[in-house]
């Protein structure tokens, strides 16, 4: 273990802002991208099944 304690690890030899600023942005970007893709999938599925149900309803009504 090269870091004596949690504090020295977090301090990064005085470069905490730069190091954690970089890795923090990486986490924000990666997590944000994953959330966006998951959200896109959910809205796509919801919209598709909605339009499907509506067209099915239309068809039933014209048949009746």
């Amino acid at each position: 273990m090269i870091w004596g304690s949690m504090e020295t690890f977090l301090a990064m030899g005085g470069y905490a802002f730069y190091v954690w600023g970089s890795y923090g942005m990486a986490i924000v970007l990666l997590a944000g991208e994953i959330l966006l893709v998951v959200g896109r999938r959910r809205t796509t599925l919801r919209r598709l099944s909605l339009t499907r149900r509506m067209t099915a309803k239309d068809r039933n009504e014209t048949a009746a």
Partner: protein
Amino acid sequence: MVPQKINWFKYSSPATFYFLAGKMIPWFAGAAVAFFAWGLYLGFFAAPTDAQQGEAYRIIFLHVPAAWMSMFIYVVMAGWAGLGLVLNTRLSSMMASALAPTGAMFTFLALWSGALWGKPTWGAYWVWDARLTSELILLFLYIGFMSLQATIEDPRRADRAGAVLALVGVVNVPIIYFSVRWWNTLHQGASVSLTQAPAMAAVMLQGMLVMALACWMYSIAVVLARVRCIILERERHSAWVAEFLEGERQ
């Protein structure tokens, strides 16, 4: 015995690929998590403190892989787009569209971490270094590609127009890089150059490579997930999507 030929075009059918991608995503996501853990361990615990830059150099375990990915993804994107343009395979074009946001994200990350690395190392957040400047222009190219595709409503035209733009970009990227490098050497005689960095310890290189692999696996996973969304959106009128939605609801 004649070896059986694999029919690659089978996988280029969006319907087949949709389910194949679904099976592959967990594997790549898992690999990404494992490689990130290993790479971060190497970067933060195995690699010693740098004599000149102190702990600030630990940013390169993020910065260099991000910069590699940003360029690599652009080339791959242009390749898929070009394939889609020449062979008229819809799936290749969808892959290109799915790659662009991830590539732009990595480009931005490379710029951001580069700025934060530059401040303690060079004394300024932004230096008009040839690499930084070309990276910024690469970001503009990604943004241009995405806005062009977003503006065109007809997906077929969007695919093909995007492909032309991406290919023009690929021809231009080396020219831009060399022109910027030349411009940079002309203007800043005494500037710091990344290329004169001292030889790297083996463990640092290993850490960077593992982090690059992690970014790679991550990109594949997230791009496959995105291409699945695009496939569903584009193929919404086809029979297999209807069937699939039917199955989804039960």
